[in-house]
């Protein structure tokens, strides 16, 4: 019986509303006092039933809830025969709860959309070429699964046959389909847009990347900051305190009207709900845009950021050195390029890879008498020619003459942060190549946006030499850049900044800089979707997409601002009502309830704005 009544609370609210309308219409049109009184009495008695049940249930588990305040207020109104106010308060209370539920669902919609992307079933191989549809929970590691066009990939796995293009938006936030074929990894929750695949399950359920993301977001939306925990503790004692205050005042002044008005005004609403609502909407917006914010504490720290420290390689730069500049000093250069490629083909130096990539197709010749000169390069014989490949020091040692133009080129390449690969054949200069790690596209614009968001310092730390670091720093307009840093130097530097009282974020790929990620006030990981960094950091930029960083910061600031607004709205409403009660006549029980419910809706609607937040 009780659950049945509670389930139909919304219908009861509707009936109460109709009864109130009938009462007032008959009062105004046919001036029938008894219809007026009776419809309000019936409405009140009907409407109070679910509230009394809730109050009783709460008392049974020793909670003084808002339902108790409302029940007592209505009883008080009956005592002084004010059926009108009793019915209106009940209606507003029930109807308010209904509206709250509807609007709260909206603020939670972004995260719900994410969790609903979770796969539910899989086609599992049972016998020879026989696939049976099973619940996704029944899939174990090592099972072979069939994924058809349009279906969700049920688990993280490896393709064993077939190929197709996959929409990985649920993992990376990037909706351009990715082509996948045998041997490549597919992720749970992504959608096979065309093709057919057979995969072997590597990770299932909550261990999949998607499962981890969902769990993380779900925990984040309910994680509480210190301020929220304070509000929670406060509201635990607040409601009983209001109850006692009303009783004492009522007994003292013998003014029932005053006592019941205080009961209604004292309902805590907007204050307790305001912050969680901003939190869930902000985190939801992030989840939709490839930014995982781990909870309201993170949002609050992130929004007050002073300094962002960047790792260079793989964060600001692509992390893959390539030939950025080249100059030739002979007319027929193909032969020299062929020799250079032949020599570099036998080396495992990282620069050699970049050189080979640049040269591409060429004629390779056998290489003899290879000699590695430490700190210089390589000298070898190719087709009977003496070929030297290395830096300026090696050229000097080989007595290679550098003309004025070559010297100018070398100086220019070095000053823009390149490592040099110089090639000579039989003591004659042929090729100079400048190799550097390229800056990621769009990073410059993103950093400008961060500055606009009032980040005071943009610092880059790198293990590379200071020349390279300075060149990148100049190009990007950073505030500070330090080279020659080991991972422990980086974390020591961050500690120094924090000790100076700055709030510091560190952005890295989490490969060798996890100490820095952990030490910084906000660790921001460039996640590729599979990284452990997802677990250790505070903010994750999905798909290693640097361009999401300004959105993440803007969103954190907007969310923190939204929380403050909601707290101010809630406190302001209580103060205005109290002042109205003490110093004027306009506040009564119904108006109190109306303002109270309205303020709850206002904070929810205010929170909802975050779902549409976009960085301008």
């Amino acid at each position, binding site marked *: 019986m009780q659950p049945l009544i509670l389930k139909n609370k919304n219908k009861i609210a509707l009936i109460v509303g109709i009864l109130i309308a009938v009462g007032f219409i008959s009062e105004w049109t046919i001036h029938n006092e008894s219809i007026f009184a009776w419809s309000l009495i019936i409405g009140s008695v009907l409407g109070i039933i679910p509230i009394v049940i809730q109050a009783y249930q709460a008392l049974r*588990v020793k*909670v003084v809830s808002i339902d108790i305040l409302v029940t007592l207020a209505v009883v008080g109104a009956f005592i002084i025969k004010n059926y009108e106010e009793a019915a209106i308060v009940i209606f507003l209370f029930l109807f308010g709860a209904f509206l709250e539920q509807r609007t709260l669902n909206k603020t939670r919609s972004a*995260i719900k959309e994410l969790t609903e992307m979770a796969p539910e079933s899989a086609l599992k191989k049972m016998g020879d070429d026989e696939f049976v549809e099973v619940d996704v929970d029944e899939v174990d590691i090592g099972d072979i699964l069939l994924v058809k066009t349009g279906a969700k990939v049920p688990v993280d796995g490896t393709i064993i046959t077939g190929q197709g293009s996959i929409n990985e938006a649920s993992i990376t936030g990037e909706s351009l389909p990715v082509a996948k074929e045998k041997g490549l990894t597919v992720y749970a929750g992504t959608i096979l847009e065309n093709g057919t695949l057979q995969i072997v399950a590597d990770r299932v359920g909550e261990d999949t990347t998607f499962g981890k993301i969902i769990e993380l977001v779900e925990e984040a939306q309910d994680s509480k900051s210190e301020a929220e925990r304070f509000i929670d503790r406060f509201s*635990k004692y607040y409601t009983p305190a209001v109850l006692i205050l009303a009783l004492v005042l009522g007994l003292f002044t013998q003014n029932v009207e005053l006592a019941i008005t205080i009961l209604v005004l004292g309902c805590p609403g907007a204050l307790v709900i305001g912050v969680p609502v901003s939190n*869930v909407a902000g985190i939801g917006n992030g989840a939709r845009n490839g930014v995982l914010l781990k909870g309201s504490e993170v949002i609050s720290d992130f929004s007050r950021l002073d300094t962002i420290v960047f790792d260079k390689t793989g964060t600001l730069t692509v992390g893959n050195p390539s030939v950025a500049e080249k100059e030739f000093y002979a007319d027929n250069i193909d032969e020299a390029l062929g020799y250079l490629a032949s020599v570099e083909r036998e080396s495992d130096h990282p620069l050699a890879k970049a050189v080979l990539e640049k040269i591409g197709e060429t004629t390779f010749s056998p290489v003899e008498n290879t000699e590695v000169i430490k700190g210089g390069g390589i000298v070898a014989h190719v087709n009977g020619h003496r070929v030297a490949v290395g830096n300026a020091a090696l050229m000097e040692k080989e007595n290679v003459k550098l003309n004025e133009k070559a010297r100018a080129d070398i100086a220019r390449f070095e000053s823009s942060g390149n490592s040099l690969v110089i090639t000579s054949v039989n003591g004659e200069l042929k090729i100079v190549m400048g190799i550097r790690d390229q800056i990621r596209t769009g990073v410059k614009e993103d950093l400008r946006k961060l500055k606009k968001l009032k980040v005071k310092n943009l610092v880059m730390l790198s293990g590379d030499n200071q020349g390279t670091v300075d060149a990148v720093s100049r190009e990007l307009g950073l505030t500070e850049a330090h080279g020659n840093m080991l991972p422990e130097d980086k974390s020591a530097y961050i500690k120094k900044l924090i000790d100076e009282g700055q709030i510091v974020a560190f952005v890295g790929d989490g490969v060798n800089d996890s100490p820095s990620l952990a030490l910084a006030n906000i660790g921001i990981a460039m996640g590729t979707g599979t990284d452990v960094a997802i677990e250790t950091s505070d903010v994750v930029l999905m798909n290693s997409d640097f361009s999401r960083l300004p959105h993440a910061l803007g969103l954190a600031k907007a969310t923190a601002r939204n929380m403050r607004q909601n707290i101010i709205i809630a406190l302001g409403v209580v103060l205005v009502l109290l002042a109205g009660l003490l110093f004027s006549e306009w506040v009564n029980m119904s108006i109190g309830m109306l303002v109270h419910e309205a303020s709850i809706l206002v904070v929810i609607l205010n929170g909802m704005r975050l779902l549409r937040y976009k960085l301008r």
Partner: protein
Amino acid sequence: MKKATIQLGTLTCPSCLQKIDNAVKALDGVDKESVNVLFNSSKVKLNFDDEILSIEKIENAITTMGYEVKKSQVRDV
């Protein structure tokens, strides 16, 4: 010991959390430290001793409070 995750119907008032929290903690066999009622995701997470208590009893305690239980998941700790 088992770990339960119970999905509830949408929670709208923060005082609901307190009610559910107290109701679940009052059951014999529940690890009180582990009880976590999540407002936005409308979930209850807790550990309980399956020799003393069953998941049905926990669900029942929540439904008699007037909250809908949508789905429960029980796993070994």
